[in-house]
């Protein structure tokens, strides 16, 4: 009673009491907030893990172990079905230069044959005559650095194994040498036998194909699925991969023009570009749907050109923006008599020269 009277009598006590109460309240709120955040983080972590598990359980049935025999020995790698008729994507190192392919699927072994092998992209397509599950195709363009991804492969002689990692970068060159198209660098541990494994986003869609490992197998490179789809599209249309080109060399310009530093330095004789009206010194702005900012951008633009297709090329000449339609020819790296697929998948040789209509 006397204490209460002291409290009523002393205003400084009252203000001190309020301060202490407020501090206690603030501490309690802070603790509660921290607790909520901790619980939420744990929930998110558990959700991510359950997502990985879900993706693995959904996709693993469509991932198979591939056996083959190359000129030296038996080989073993990974592949995955991309349609219900038994079409497989794998890495070129697995399905490119070997033969006598078999796949382990549903606990049995089935024969498979090579449909297409493309060293430029680093992928191969195999086919087996069995009804199969298939993985949905995603878009690697939607990926960003630190996007989580899952890979499913067959390391060594072990069963299918999920790997969880994240996109670490989009690289055009490695150890000073340029890829044919931008590769996905993935911080995801890999082991031998996992070449050709699918790289999946968290929706379970394929966004890439594992083609090589980096040092210590702690990371790997994957070909973006769009590159593989381009090759498959070529096969469906022509019965083979048809890398195209127009015959222009590009290097870095002294100054940036319209956001581009890619200057055309050489128009090669006897190529589609020679008679197209494009001149050395023009600044390249766009090839097809690919915008060009640096000379390196030409790699991706070039990769997606198909021989025989007309490619719109936009350049800057002085202050004038010009667009030329050039019909691409077969890339020198894949010079062979072009083939056109017949309904029975038996190709007919065809000379492209007869079809090329050069755009002035």
């Amino acid at each position, binding site marked *: 009673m006397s204490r209460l009277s002291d409290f009523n009598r002393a205003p400084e006590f009252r203000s001190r009491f309020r301060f202490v109460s407020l501090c206690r309240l603030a501490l309690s709120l802070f603790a509660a907030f921290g607790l909520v955040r901790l619980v939420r983080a744990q929930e998110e972590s558990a959700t991510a893990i359950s997502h990985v598990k879900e993706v693995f359980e959904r996709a693993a049935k469509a991932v198979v172990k591939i056996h083959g025999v190359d000129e030296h020995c038996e080989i073993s790698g990974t592949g995955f079905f991309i349609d219900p008729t038994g079409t497989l994507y794998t*890495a070129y190192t697995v399905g490119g230069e070997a033969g006598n392919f078999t796949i382990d699927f549903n606990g049995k*072994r089935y024969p498979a044959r090579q449909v297409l092998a493309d060293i430029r992209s680093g992928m191969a397509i195999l086919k087996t005559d069995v009804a199969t599950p298939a993985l949905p195709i995603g878009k690697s363009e939607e990926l960003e650095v630190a996007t989580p991804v899952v890979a499913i492969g067959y390391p060594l002689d072990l069963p299918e194994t999920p790997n969880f990692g994240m996109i670490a970068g989009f690289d055009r060159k490695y150890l000073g040498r340029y890829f044919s198209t931008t590769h996905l660098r993935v911080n995801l541990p890999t082991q031998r036998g996992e070449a050709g494994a699918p790289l999946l986003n968290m929706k379970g869609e394929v966004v890439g194909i594992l083609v090589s490992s980096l040092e210590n197998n702690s990371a790997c490179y994957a070909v973006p699925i769009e590159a593989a789809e381009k090759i498959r599209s070529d096969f469906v249309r022509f019965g083979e991969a048809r890398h195209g080109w127009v015959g222009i060399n590009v290097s870095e310009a002294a100054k940036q023009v319209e956001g581009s530093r890619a200057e055309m330095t050489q128009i090669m004789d006897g190529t589609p570009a020679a008679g197209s009206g494009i001149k050395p010194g023009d600044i390249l702005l766009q090839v097809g749907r690919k915008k060009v900012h640096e000379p390196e951008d030409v790699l991706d633009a070039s990769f997606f050109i198909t021989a025989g297709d007309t490619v719109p090329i936009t350049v800057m000449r002085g202050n004038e923006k010009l667009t030329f339609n050039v019909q691409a020819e077969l890339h020198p790296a894949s010079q062979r008599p072009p083939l056109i697929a017949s309904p029975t998948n038996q190709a007919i040789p065809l000379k492209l020269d007869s079809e090329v209509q050069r755009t002035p």
Partner: protein
Amino acid sequence: MDEFNDNEIGKLLRLKRYEQPPPGYFENFLHEFHRRQRDELLREPLWRILLERTQGFIFRLDVRSLTSYPAAIAAVLVCAAVISLKIYQEPGAANVVALQSGPALSTAVNAEGEWTLASPAATRIFRAQPLRSLNESANTHRAAIPPRYVLDSVPVSYESTFRF
């Protein structure tokens, strides 16, 4: 015999009692013995001498005890050869792949399950049968040799220049 009756023999023996060997006889006895032995040996043909010496050498070495080593090694080699042949031709482990699509591609194990000395290829018997499960072929001979598990450390192709 009649000339030598008992009396005469007794006389002769009495005379012998006084006979003595020449001086130095006992000192040279061993030397003389060896000399006579060599003379005796030289009278025999060379092949007999060699034969006798060889026999003596062999008996000194005790060859019978040495013959057990090669015999044991030979036995081990024969066992190893037989075991390896059996493993290589194990019927349940034929290094064939059961293929589903075509009977012609389908292969099966040796039905009799017998060991043969034929080459492994000859043990492959083709027949149109359903697939073998993977577990059946798990302990094949070829499975003992691991395949090359593929994942290269470098990409397979590069671009030389910026051209398109």
